[in-house]
């Protein structure tokens, strides 16, 4: 526990009477790729959204690269600061509909980081090249396929050079034949040593990319460990159940290049 | 207080004229509108273009101008006709409300065309095909299936257009029809208490509009409910 990049302490969240997160503690080291697995309704997406304050947790604290925010009395400035240390890749891409792909990835640099437009443009084109979208720089989101939009969403996130990138089910809105290209992109990013937290259904992808897998159910972390341990030899009954159902369905995309 | 009540009653006494103007304008406007909508839907050659021109011209002209054109223009045209043909036509006996209704109807017909057209087009084509499959003619299909369904869909629009007609009927005051607005003018000039009178009449219009809005939404809810249970 030398250099935690992200630390969640006792995160609680309820929607009305529904207790969605029941005290989550999670530490992510620098450069670590943590994949959160779990059945739908387990609270994994909500957890990710509380980290970026898209949902405000009812209790607990969040530390991103030594900057701590107590969720209950978070000030506007704190929230902004936290958001600027993290970046999010959304399930539905959420590219800005009124901006081109290049403008989408540059937006954060120009507005938030106050970088000069020329430099931002250069960096934007570089990152688009990295995700294989250099030729789509001047296209608008609605002219792209889902997979292309999601790769642009990833480019937007990494260009901000955040301490942690949060992926919220980045492939679940995609047609099956487009999943591969996005996962390849994420894997490529993971190899550059960026700290990442990924919520996904893709077990085989998790196996390949994760340093650690966290299994969540009913608002709690059931167990966590390296993929070779957790996926092959889980300790808890709940995890076994989930994994056996997944493998019997064979729903996950095989991801072995 | 007595002043308030007296004036309120005086203005309410001509409220039927306001309602009459609005209702007639809507009925005549809907008749014209239905014709125009069908011509537009079936894109009848040539007439379709005439209809588009008609709609554009009326839409681009203030009701007030339509009112003046009807009020001054029709008698003037008939007068010239009478002179040149030496027929004995006179419009002196025609009450001004007649011209006001013409102007209001023309204006409403434009918006009703839109409302009717979009309502008819929102009925799935399968409904028409189903009518044909049981052997109905197009006319029967419209009368028995398409238009009844379209009416329900059109209610919110028709409601808005009717409220618009109530408000626009106030312009008839300018061609000396004694409806609510004109009565207020008369009362105001007599009493010199313009502010109070116009507050009264504005509250009255507001009340009438809210009332009709309520009625229309009740009708809609009723019809929708019927649709659900069937």
């Amino acid at each position, binding site marked *: 526990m030398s250099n935690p990049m992200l630390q969640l302490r006792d995160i609680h969240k309820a929607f009305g009477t529904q207790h969605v997160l029941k005290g989550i503690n999670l530490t992510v080291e620098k450069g670590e790729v943590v994949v959160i697995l779990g059945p739908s309704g387990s609270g994994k997406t909500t957890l990710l959204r509380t980290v*970026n304050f*898209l949902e405000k947790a009812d209790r607990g604290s969040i530390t991103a690269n030594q900057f701590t925010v107590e969720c209950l009395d978070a000030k506007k400035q704190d929230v*902004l600061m936290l*958001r600027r240390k*993290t*970046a*999010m890749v*959304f399930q*539905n891409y*959420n*590219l*800005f*509909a*009124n901006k081109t792909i290049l403008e989408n990835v540059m*937006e*954060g640099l120009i*507005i*938030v980081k106050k970088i000069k437009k020329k430099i931002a443009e250069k960096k934007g084109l570089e990152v688009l090249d990295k995700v294989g979208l250099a030729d789509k720089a001047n*296209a*608008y989101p*609605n002219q792209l396929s889902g997979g292309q939009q999601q790769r642009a969403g990833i480019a*937007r*996130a990494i260009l*901000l050079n955040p301490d942690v990138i949060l992926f919220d089910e980045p492939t679940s809105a995609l047609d099956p034949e487009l999943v591969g290209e996005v996962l390849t992109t994420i894997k490529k990013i993971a190899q550059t040593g960026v700290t990442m937290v990924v919520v996904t259904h893709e077990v085989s992808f998790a196996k390949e990319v994760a340093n650690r897998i966290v299994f969540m159910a009913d608002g709690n972390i059931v167990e966590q460990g390296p993929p070779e341990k957790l996926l092959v030899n889980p300790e808890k009954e709940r995890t076994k159940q989930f994994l056996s159902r997944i493998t019997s369905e064979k729903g996950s995309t095989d991801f072995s290049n | 207080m007595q002043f308030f009540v007296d004036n309120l009653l005086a203005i309410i006494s001509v409220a039927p004229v306001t309602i009459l103007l609005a209702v007639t304008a809507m009925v005549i406007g809907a008749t014209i509108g239905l014709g125009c909508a069908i011509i537009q839907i079936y894109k009848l050659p040539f007439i379709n273009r005439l209809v588009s021109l008609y709609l554009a*011209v009326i*839409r*681009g*002209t*203030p*009701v*007030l*101008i*339509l009112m*003046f*054109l009807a009020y001054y*223009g029709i008698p*003037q*045209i008939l007068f*010239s*006709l009478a*002179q*040149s043909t030496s027929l004995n036509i006179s419009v002196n006996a025609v009450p001004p409300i007649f011209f006001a209704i013409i102007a209001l109807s023309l204006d409403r017909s434009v918006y009703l065309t839109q409302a009717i057209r979009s309502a008819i087009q929102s009925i799935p084509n399968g409904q028409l095909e189903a009518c044909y499959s049981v052997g109905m003619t197009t006319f029967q299909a419209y009368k028995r299936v398409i238009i009844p369904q379209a009416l329900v869909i059109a209610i919110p629009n028709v409601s808005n257009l009717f*409220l618009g007609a109530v*408000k*626009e009927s*106030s*312009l008839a*005051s*300018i061609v000396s029809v004694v409806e609510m607005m004109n009565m*207020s003018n008369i009362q*105001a000039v007599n009493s010199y208490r313009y*502010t109070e009178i*116009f*507050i009264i009449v*504005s509250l009255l*219009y*507001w009340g*009438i*509009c*809210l009332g009709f809005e309520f009625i229309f939404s009740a009708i809609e809810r009723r019809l929708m409910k019927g649709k659900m249970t069937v």
Partner: protein
Amino acid sequence: MDQIIDLTFMGSAFPRIIEAIPTTLVLLCLSMLLGLVLGFILTVMKVKGNKAMVLLASTYISFMRGTPPIVQLFLIYYGSPNLLSYFGMNVDRWDKMIFAFIAFGLGNAAYLSEAMRSAYLSVPSLQLEAAQSVGMTDIQAFRRIILPQTLVVAVPNLTNSTVIVLKNTSLAFTIGMVDLVGQARMVSSAAFGAKNLEVYLIAALVYFVLCIFIEQFSQFLENYFKRKMGQLR
């Protein structure tokens, strides 16, 4: 009297009537401007305000939508001097234009705020989340992401409102303004009222052409915004 419509007279009356176009257009612009500002405030009250503010804005909008423009005009023209004299203001000398544009602007604000609100609500909240996730402040997100998308949706409604306000400005003659209608009436009475049909035909034509200009301009604006969002190429 060999022809029903006196075209020679129309030819000579036309240039005199169109002299009033600037008055009508200034009235239109001022009314739209006041309507936009006030409409924006009403929208913010309805979207972000507390219960009392929502109620206040809704009542205002309901009243303005439930009363005829001519009644609103008379209320302002005859009523406001009375009201303002309580506060020691004497507005008898004010130009009639001021009363007219305030009346039309107040009424117009109600319609515009409805248009703005529905346009604002049509932009998915996910767009705001995306802006927040890259670290924008609320103001930055509104200005750079939400507002541009709202505008595209709002253009057709704003055009409709502009056309409606243009047509409503024809009422200004009732308080003695010399707008297009007022001017037409003056030209008509100079001809001893025998040429009413002709002058109002001219007025109708002018309004019709102005409407077409407004619609063309808005089509241009809409295409421009859509191109900016890649919906048109």
